[in-house]
């Protein structure tokens, strides 16, 4: 299967997806970007749930609400936050499918179950995705039906595992209610309902990883991520930056550092542009500590460029449609 024929265009992606998996290497500002994206989608009319898996909760600080403690908490208009413990979901499935309370208790207390719930490869991922599915179907008690779940996913390598695990698990199990859930989850991530957002720094290793992730998505799912966010980019230097005709300025180490960092960013951005089809957003390095203020600022940057990216993407899709007609 050649790449061009296998790839689905990320048409209308971001604004109609039911699940957006936000992934990226550690330390690239993924959580703050997830929060910003959540705000942005909510403002565009989507009832949005920001879902955090990391037990060391920090998204509530970025969204300026108290810790969710596992519950779905409102953040603002159409915006909600939840810190999910995958084990709770597995427990819920057991309770849901085994109708006798006493047996449920015994199962939950057994060492075998403990090991299984903690350790069965892929089970945790199935639980997370199953939860997302229930959220968009409006099946979660005392919670509104959600249009889009924005998932702050684990770092890149594990992010792709999140997407492939459900299929593996379904195949390994074969039969039974858990297999049904795994199959539904696998279909959900493979379908039009789900998209991937990749956050990266414009530096060598994160860019390598992002390109690998993109390739992996193309190979396994026949599609590319909906959006690439290049975060923390040093600002362009003023035209008169003290350097003359290629010579490095001796006098100003600040300018020298700034120029070199910017050059690394530009080099890596160029590499991305060359190999990354589809919408991209570049976000500058901002002198703001992680927190709600940073999220607001990021959202401003994302909003602007998102509109542009989506507009040019639509134009490109229309051009393509006309050409093929």
């Amino acid at each position: 299967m050649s790449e061009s024929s296998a790839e689905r265009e990320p048409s209308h992606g971001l604004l109609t997806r039911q699940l957006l998996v936000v992934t990226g290497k550690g330390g690239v500002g993924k959580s703050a970007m997830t929060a910003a994206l959540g705000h942005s989608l909510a403002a565009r009319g989507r009832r949005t749930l920001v879902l955090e898996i990391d037990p060391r909760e920090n998204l509530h600080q970025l969204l300026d609400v108290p810790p969710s403690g596992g519950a779905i908490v409102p953040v603002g208009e159409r915006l909600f936050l939840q810190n999910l413990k995958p084990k709770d979901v597995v427990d819920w499935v057991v309770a849901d499918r085994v109708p006798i309370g006493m047996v449920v208790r015994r199962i939950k207390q057994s060492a075998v179950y403990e090991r299984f719930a903690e350790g069965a490869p892929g089970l945790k991922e199935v639980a997370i995705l199953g939860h997302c599915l229930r959220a968009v179907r409006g099946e979660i008690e005392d919670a509104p039906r959600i249009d889009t779940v924005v998932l702050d996913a684990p770092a890149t390598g594990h992010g792709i595992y999140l997407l492939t695990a459900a299929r593996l698990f379904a195949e390994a199990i074969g039969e039974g209610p858990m297999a049904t859930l795994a199959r539904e989850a696998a279909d959900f991530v493979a379908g039009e309902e789900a998209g991937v957002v990749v956050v990266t720094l414009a530096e060598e290793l994160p860019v390598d990883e992002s390109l690998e992730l993109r390739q992996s998505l193309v190979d396994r799912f026949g599609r590319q991520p909906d959006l690439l966010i290049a975060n923390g980019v040093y600002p362009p230097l003023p035209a008169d930056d003290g350097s003359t005709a290629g010579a490095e300025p001796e006098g100003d180490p600040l300018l020298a550092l700034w120029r070199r960092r910017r050059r690394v960013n530009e080099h890596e951005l160029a590499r991305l542009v060359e190999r990354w089809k589809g919408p991209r957003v570049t976000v500058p390095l901002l002198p703001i500590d992680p927190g709600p203020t940073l999220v607001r600022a990021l959202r401003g940057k994302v909003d602007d460029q998102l509109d542009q990216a989506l507009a040019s993407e639509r134009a490109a899709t229309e051009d393509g449609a006309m050409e093929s007609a």
Partner: protein
Amino acid sequence: MKLDLAADTPPLLVCVGSGGVGKTTLASAMGLISAQAGHDTLVMTFDPSLRLKDTLGVGDPADTGSGAAAEQEQEVRVAFDAPGTLHASLLDARRTFDRLVARHAPDDAARERILRNPYYDHLAGHLGGILEYMAVERLYEVAQEGRYQRIILDTPPARQAIDFLEAPQRIVSFLDSGALKIALRRWFDEDGRLMPSRSLGFLGRGVERFLDKIVGLKLLRDMSEFFQAFEPLFAGFRQRAAEVEKLLAASSTQFLLVAGPGESRNPDTLFFARKLQEAGWNLGPIVVNRVHPTFSHAEDARSVSAAAEDSVGKDPVGDDETARQGRELFAWLGQRHRQGLSALRALLPADQIVAEMPLEPDEPTDLESLLAMGESLHRRLTHPPR
């Protein structure tokens, strides 16, 4: 604990820290210093950047066809002219696991049964911390061979960094756990039907029914087959894990903790330092890497944040404004990183060495610049500021 790469000890240096902090580059730079001081040194890394691979001259096996894949773990001599030799090797966790299976399997048939079991594939990648464990397993393997006077291990990017540290213990506890004993039971009769069980009583029947009802039997069948095939290996595997654990805890092994700059990284750093010490391992210096320098003529950082918040979304107007905002950004970064460092030092015992490595304009692209980075680190480690 002080770290002097020129001295004879430690023979084993383990670099730990979260992903993306420049651990691998620092490990390689220290390798050069160690070789320069006359020690035959091996640097073992996971996943270095292409640039670093080029710098060290360890090729990318993926680029050179299938035959080269087998050579992935080969130790490649780095073309570095020094009193000691420097070798580098790229770790491949899955290959180590396969080899471990091959070594401990009683015969070829048993080995094939394991390697071909569908569950092995699943398990090899994702049993909590197994990849991390394989890194230390490989370290043990090489350490036992005794061909090097110093080994510097760059640990893998861990999902939760601590997975790596707890991996040997977790393997042992998994091997000893009831789950395994139950998995090792004969679950199925010859027709592949679940066998009735009396020994587990009502609880057991409940659990079995749960597994049957919720999980389905295919996974259980694969798991059961896998563990039965694996059983002859457990004794060797378990003993091995215990020895690896002993090696990590030996007084001759030192841990170097590499951290990112900025106050928001401190909780991770402290968590890591505490875990290392709780495990009874020898925490050496903490290196805070890529610290933004402060420039004397930069803007007053305190006003920067407020200004930035006001100007968010507005485009800079003209060169003067661009330059001013850039200087403000650098002032802010420098100030935040300084603040992060003092906060970290304040939270650590007074005798804990915290060395800071400045953000350099350029990443090392040849052995010369990598050596310069190594020398800079070596200086900071042997003459710490406090």
